[in-house]
């Protein structure tokens, strides 16, 4: 197994190289001038041509594409992802500083998603073609279709503005605000993010369970007189989890970097908001570093998913 893990880590290097080149090229081709944005030359501020050129040189934006890319690559190999154009902060530190908030939100959203999806998916599969199945499928379709920004705002309007149950925005820290405030601030963003995941997972679990429930070994177990609950829990559910875990792995990866809308709406100080802010201001080092770190995490999650496969189904050999 260790050989397998080492092999996967080595395979990640060319993947990250290709990704870094793609990010760099796309940013190079994207219109928008980081110098203008850095100098605040928007609606209200004026800059001289000399000041513009000085900043352009300082940021290295006057260098040719390949030279800039090689500089970035060499820096990344040394563990230096550069400094932000806008704030002058170290990129790695900045991303890592926001990662805990994103991890908290992601883990909570996954918990919400699993707690809803597992019972609903199993119910839909076991009560196939019943009203329960239709209801679960209907809810899952709704959940997948709802735009996150809209759903987030609806949650805020009803549960915060009207019912006054939760705060509308922001994060709370246990040491600063107490555990009650921590969970009350977490609740709406986690539900907003988790319901989309629950919808996808419900559909996955349902179809996977349906397939497994029709297998011979399930019928064999039933014919031996095992109770339905025992058959589902001990034999069907674990085997049905393989495709579910695959999708869950991808979803967690996507949530880590893609909770942009949720983090923005709920004023959650995470990596997604940082990415959004960096993109709108063409903070190239921050976008590159952020994306590269998230890609590395994504690859790591995929590796973990592969290892979980083997645990779920020993027939799958990692080597």
């Amino acid at each position, binding site marked *: 197994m260790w050989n397998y893990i080492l092999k996967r880590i080595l395979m990640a290097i060319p993947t990250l190289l290709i990704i870094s080149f793609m990010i760099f090229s796309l940013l190079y081709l*994207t*219109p*928008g*001038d980081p110098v*203008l*944005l*850095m*100098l*605040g*030359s*928007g*609606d*209200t*501020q*004026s*800059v*001289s*041509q*000399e*000041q*513009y050129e*000085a900043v352009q040189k*300082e940021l290295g934006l006057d260098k040719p594409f390949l030279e800039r890319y090689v500089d970035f690559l060499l820096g990344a190999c040394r563990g230096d992802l550069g*400094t*932000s154009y*806008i*704030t*002058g*902060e*170290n990129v790695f*530190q*900045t991303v890592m*500083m*926001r*990662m*805990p*908030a994103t*991890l*908290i939100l992601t*883990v909570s959203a996954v918990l919400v998603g699993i707690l809803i999806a597992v019972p609903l998916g199993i119910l839909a599969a076991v009560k196939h073609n019943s009203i329960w199945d239709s209801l679960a499928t209907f809810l899952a379709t709704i959940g997948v279709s709802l735009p996150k920004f809209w759903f987030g*705002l609806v949650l*805020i309007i009803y549960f*915060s*503005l009207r019912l*006054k149950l939760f*705060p*509308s*925005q*922001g994060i709370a*820290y*246990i*040491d*600063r605000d107490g555990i009650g405030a921590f969970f009350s601030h977490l609740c709406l963003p986690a539900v907003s993010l988790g319901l989309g995941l629950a919808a996808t997972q419900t559909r996955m679990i349902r179809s996977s369970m349906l397939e497994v429930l029709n297998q011979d070994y399930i019928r064999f177990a039933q014919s031996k007189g095992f109770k339905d609950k025992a058959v589902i829990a001990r034999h069907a559910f674990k085997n049905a989890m393989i495709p579910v875990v695959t999708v869950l792995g991808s979803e967690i990866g996507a949530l880590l970097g893609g909770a942009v809308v949720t983090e*923005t709406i*709920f*004023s959650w*100080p995470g990596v997604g*908001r*940082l990415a959004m802010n960096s993109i*709108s201001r063409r903070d190239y080092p921050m976008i590159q570093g952020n994306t590269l770190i998230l890609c590395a995490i994504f690859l790591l999650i995929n590796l973990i998913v592969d290892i979980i496969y083997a645990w779920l189904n020993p027939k799958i050999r990692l080597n």
Partner: protein
Amino acid sequence: MKKRLFAVILAMSCLMTACAPKEEAPKATQPQTTAAEISQKETTAEGSAAQPAQTAGEKVLTIGTPYTLDTFLPWQFTSDGDRYVISNIYECLFEYDANTCIPGLAESYTNPDDCTWDVKIRDNAYWQTGNDLFGDEKVPVTAADVKFVMDWTMDPANGSKQQTNLSSLITSVEVLDEHTLRFHTEEPKALFLFTLSRVMIFPKKAIDEGFDLNAQPVGSGAFKFVSYQTDDQVVLEKNGDYYVTPELDQVIFKIIPDKSVAAIALQNGEIDITPQVLSTDIDAIASNDQLELVPNTLGWYRYAGFNCKDELFTDPEIRRALAMAVDMDAAVAATFRNNSGTKLAIRAYGPIPLELPGADEAAWKAESPSYDPDGAKAILESKGWKPGSDGIYEKDGKKFQFILKTPNNDNNRVKLGTIISTQLKQIGIDCVAQPTEWATLLTDIKAGDTQMFVMGGGSSLNGMEMLFHTTLSQSNSHRVFYDNEECDALIEKAAVTIDQEERGKLLLEASNMTIKDSVHMFGYFEYVQIGMNKKVTDFAKAPTLWYSLCNGYRNVGISE
């Protein structure tokens, strides 16, 4: 299975606990040359908890700001969001609210001659105490400190964002006595005080000792820095040594990027002020008994600019014809309609906000083309344009078609663009409104890669320079390639005319030229509404977060 489930839950709990941010000691002795230390996110001032517990009876004002904080360095900031916060920690010599000059660190000034300014600073100004830089020692702010900041800012090696502005303003600074400075300028400078209102005064000792002002800002303002938590909130507390005792014990800036959510937070009582209420939230706030809307001090100018170098728009008559084809009164009314009757914008007939010198609505109206679609068609036809088979004007086989770019981050400007394009289509001009991402739009405008664009700005005392001057507008987002030496000369003359009345006349004359040449399709002055809890006192007097909440002019408080 149960054991595994328990193990998973335990692991997640550990992860969440581990992820919770920890307090970090302030980085008091780090080099100050970069902004990197702001990344020590739970930065706190000495002796303070991350957020001090609010005790009963304390007056705390919570402001929801939509901007992420980039820096606490007083010479590095460019965004409004940074200014909102650090203007409470640092002082400028003077502050400006629209056209009103408000004393800051300076208490008075005199002009021995047009190129000399003697500025007297308060003798009761002190650097803030309770930090790693000054400890508990009460150190006065002196003229030598101010001179140091001016010289330091003008040195390009220090990378101050105000370097260009200040270097083009003053030639040298002298210390006359402990509290008086003499500034020399090469020529008379009409915007001398205004330019100084952008330079914040910081302690020389911080630079000498390599103290990191980004991690622990120390100024002479009414509020002291307490803590900053990444993208979450900044906490300030009152400076007891300030010459005016602040009404507020604490000010909290909460970062809420979504303005709709900020409006909800205001209605919920989670914040007391939100600086920009969206038009979609106006009615909800106006109808709430606990809240009120306060318009910004001056109307922000918004316009549709022609690229005067584009072959379609080189002729001022053609530009005028297009302006005549658009019913701007109706467009502005449609864009800003609301049930509460709140004044969100007024029609602009010229480019200078009505609160600033040079604005004269009546004079502009006399020069402005009126809405006259038939007259517009007549002008186009007199210039050789003929309606084609599809109703679109053509000339030499080329259709009159172009793209009108609008910034996609401002719904009002997008709406204006859509209305303009619709009305131009009605007279036979194929105009397509294209919402464009902000950064892309700025680059396109600077590069001249636009035909027509909706933009806003120039709503300050140097607005005419930014909007129309041939060379001064080159590097900004208002580049219309208007090349009029006479107009340039008037703007330049206004810049060296200290007499405000005379200066106003020059700017009016220049603005009339731009109207006559139809450089812009003049849109509207937008009065951005600040949503505020009625408990907040003394804020409406000068409704802006651009300068300190407490100074000699106002002292914002909150009633029980």
